[in-house]
């Protein structure tokens, strides 16, 4: 049986590699592979292989940093602390497996595996072995990938091989633990233990550990004081004392065994750390094999759910998109007559989170107004400094929303492309459909940007020379100008992103069909897309920006800075509106001519 599974995995892997190699004959995949390969090389492999080049520089820098630490034993103190913190992290991950599942999680099989393996004449134990063996393929790949990343952490010592084995130990043990936990949870449900009771028990146990640790600190250690925070060495020493002793210390021992091989600074330590790590792994394996319980039903349900989620992701939706099962009323009244574009706004708003509505926007604006009023009334240096921090955070958040938001808010044509054949039967011009599709993300991103702008405008007050240049009215003119331009900048960016799906539908389809992963060539395609979009938006904004600067420079002497800013805003508004209209019209024409059947073939 295991031979058959091995055959399935190896043959699938071989066929996948062959099909990927074959598709490199298509330009989009070849370009993607070249760009993705170059990215991977520069990110990981350039630093691989010995202490030469930048890796050597990094190691030197790390050594210098450690040498600069107050204690000469910084390295020997830091690594045990890393081990303890890693163990604590593993403990947290393990706890999640016992707390999060609402019912029986089942074992993770694909739909095809459930279809072929569950009716096959094989024992439950063999099925578990199939599952474990199957997981090893992804664990080996993940270990390799993590090694590429962790090989840059030169301060850890060790080498690529010890890191790879280390990751394998950590991931395999976690996988065994999750399998054992899933089987145990199934058995608990069979014995009538409710999820609530189970969660309360686990969290109660955690509370006991925390309580005992606090009691131990109170009695045997001491509460941290200012000296413990005076430097890295005393802080490390205090934390180590906390994590290495008492109940928590005892609880973390097996987790430290698991991370031991990865954190071994040299080969000798690595070899010594193997036995305890193997002991933990064998104990887990023995636990999993002893759990004779039915998991098939839960696994079938989980496989179907995963399949639906994957299909949802491939349709360009969020990972959580398939989770919603409750209907909700429309965001506003949609009559039978009127502009059809509003129907798309209405429809796409229904697909967003419930808090994207005018009431929440108004409430948030009111909170910002009240909060900033309190801020403005404070005159102490602390409040003034906090005001600047809040203002800068608001400004940065606004910039992020404006620049990255269009990539994340996908309630537009990108999400509706799987329905392209139905959309094309609607009696609408391409530009009408496209305009309707981008209205929702434009509305959401504009609202969010306005909130950030409001926060920044109310809290940031220019000082020094800037105060002379920028009067309060000038400052408000800039804020209002940006606010007026925001919907157009959002629309322009969204048109570029949506336009990419219309102009390069085959690229878009291959990225979507691949789901969240997809290999180096698809990663390269994504990079090309992002870079291309960046160039296009810069090109689109350049004429407007240059016009604005020229106008402000030329007119501020005559009409004053505030009026010059207002005039520039008006002109930029016209330029951007013109660009948006041209893009809508051109992309609409392209959509009308789009051949969904040939272009969207994988």
């Amino acid at each position, binding site marked *: 049986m295991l031979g058959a599974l091995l055959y399935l995995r190896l043959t699938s892997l071989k066929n996948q590699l062959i099909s990927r190699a074959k598709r490199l004959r298509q330009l989009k995949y070849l370009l993607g592979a070249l760009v993705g390969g170059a990215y991977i090389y520069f990110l990981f492999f350039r630093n691989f292989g010995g202490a030469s080049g930048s890796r050597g520089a990094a190691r030197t820098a790390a050594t210098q940093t450690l040498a600069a630490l107050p204690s000469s034993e910084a390295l020997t103190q830091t690594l045990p602390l890393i081990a303890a913190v890693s163990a604590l992290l593993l403990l947290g991950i393990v706890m999640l497996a016992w707390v999060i599942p609402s019912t029986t999680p089942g074992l993770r099989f694909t739909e095809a595996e459930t279809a072929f393996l569950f009716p096959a004449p094989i024992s439950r134990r063999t099925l578990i072995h199939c599952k474990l063996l199957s997981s090893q393929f992804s664990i080996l790949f993940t270990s390799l990938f993590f090694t590429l990343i962790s090989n840059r952490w030169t301060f850890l010592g060790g080498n690529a091989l010890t890191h790879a084995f280390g990751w394998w130990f950590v991931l395999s043990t976690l996988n065994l633990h999750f399998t054992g936990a899933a089987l145990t949870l199934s058995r608990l449900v069979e014995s009538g233990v409710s999820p609530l009771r189970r969660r309360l028990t686990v969290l109660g146990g955690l509370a006991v550990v925390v309580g005992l640790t606090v009691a131990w600190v109170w009695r045997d250690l001491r509460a941290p004081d200012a000296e413990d925070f005076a430097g890295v060495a005393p802080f490390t020493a205090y934390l180590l004392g906390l994590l290495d002793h008492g109940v928590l210390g005892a609880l973390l021992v097996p987790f430290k065994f698991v991370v031991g091989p990865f954190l071994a600074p040299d080969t000798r330590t690595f070899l010594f750390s193997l036995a305890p790590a193997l002991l933990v792994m064998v104990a887990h394996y023995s636990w999993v094999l002893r759990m004779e319980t039915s998991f098939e039903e839960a696994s079938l349900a989980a496989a179907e759910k995963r399949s639906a989620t994957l299909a949802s992701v491939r349709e360009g939706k969020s990972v959580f998109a398939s989770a919603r099962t409750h209907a909700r009323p429309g965001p506003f009244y949609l009559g039978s*007559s009127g502009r059809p574009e509003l*129907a798309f706004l209405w429809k796409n708003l229904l697909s967003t989170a419930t808090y994207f509505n005018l009431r929440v926007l108004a409430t948030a604006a009111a909170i910002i107004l009240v909060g900033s009023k309190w801020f403005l009334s404070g005159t102490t240096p602390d409040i003034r400094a906090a005001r600047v921090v809040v203002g800068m955070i608001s400004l940065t958040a606004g910039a992020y929303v404006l620049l990255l938001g269009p990539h994340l808010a996908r309630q537009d044509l990108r999400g509706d492309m799987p329905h392209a*054949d139905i959309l094309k039967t*609607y009696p609408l011009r391409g530009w009408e459909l496209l305009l309707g599709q981008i209205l929702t993300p434009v509305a959401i991103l504009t609202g969010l940007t306005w909130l950030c702008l409001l926060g920044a405008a109310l809290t940031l007050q220019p000082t020094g020379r800037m105060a002379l240049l920028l009067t309060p009215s000038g400052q408000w003119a800039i804020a209002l100008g940006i606010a007026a331009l925001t919907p157009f900048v959002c629309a322009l960016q969204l048109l570029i992103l949506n336009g990419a799906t219309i102009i390069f539908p085959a690229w878009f389809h291959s990225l979507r069909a691949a789901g969240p992963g997809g290999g180096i060539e698809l990663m390269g395609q994504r990079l090309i897309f992002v870079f291309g979009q960046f160039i296009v938006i810069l090109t689109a904004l350049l004429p407007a920006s240059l016009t604005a600067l020229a106008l402000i420079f030329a007119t501020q002497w005559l009409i004053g800075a505030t009026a010059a800013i207002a005039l520039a805003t008006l002109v930029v508004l016209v330029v951007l509106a013109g660009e948006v209209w041209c893009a809508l019209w051109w992309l609409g024409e392209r959509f009308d001519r789009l051949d969904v059947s040939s272009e969207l073939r994988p």
Partner: protein
Amino acid sequence: MIEVSGLTKRYGGFTAVRDLSLAVQPGEVLGLVGPNGAGKTSTLRCLAGIIPATAGNVRIAGHDISTDPVAAKRALAFFPDEPRLFDYLTIRQHLNFVARIYGVADHEAIAGPLLEELEIADKADQLPGELSRGMKQKLAIACGLLHSPSVMFFDEPLTGLDPLGIRRMKDSILKRAREGAAVVLSSHLLHLLQEVCSHVLILKKGEKIAHGTLSEISAQFANGESGVSLEEIFIRATGGSEH
């Protein structure tokens, strides 16, 4: 009502539909049949304006689908084999959305009886995720019928329906044809053609093999024999293979 002349659809070097001409009058139901890959879906998609034809003309209710697509699409409805629904819209909200797109005045007065006819009125506030495959198909049909199209295209309309649903779907198609709609449907189910279609068009490798009423097609391929089944006629017409 539907006039097609010289319709050709090519995908690169592959010709899916070659020089197809046909006409469907109000009240007629044309069944498109043929082996897998014969070009049935490509033909339907070209007729519905979903994909552009490489050559030829398609007129829907007097409007050229390539030069006046909005007017042509206002008169037609396309029903894909797999219902394409929006995950976050209930049945009622789907109809609301479609009503706005097509500008259907007083759509609630039309939607109510339609949902009753399709037996999904009691599910009006449910999301597609809560509906069975057959219910989803019915919702897609309700959306298509809301604007009272005079031309309808069905791609494998009986897929996923239970026996009662199949019966109702046949009745529904015939009812619309009797009311004056021109209907084109593609199907592998020959009994559907026998019961519903007034005309049949057999396609093979994108080319028209035969076109006419059922009796005309039977006469063409029966070779003088009597009582030859439609299945036998189909096999004779297509040569018994996809190639």
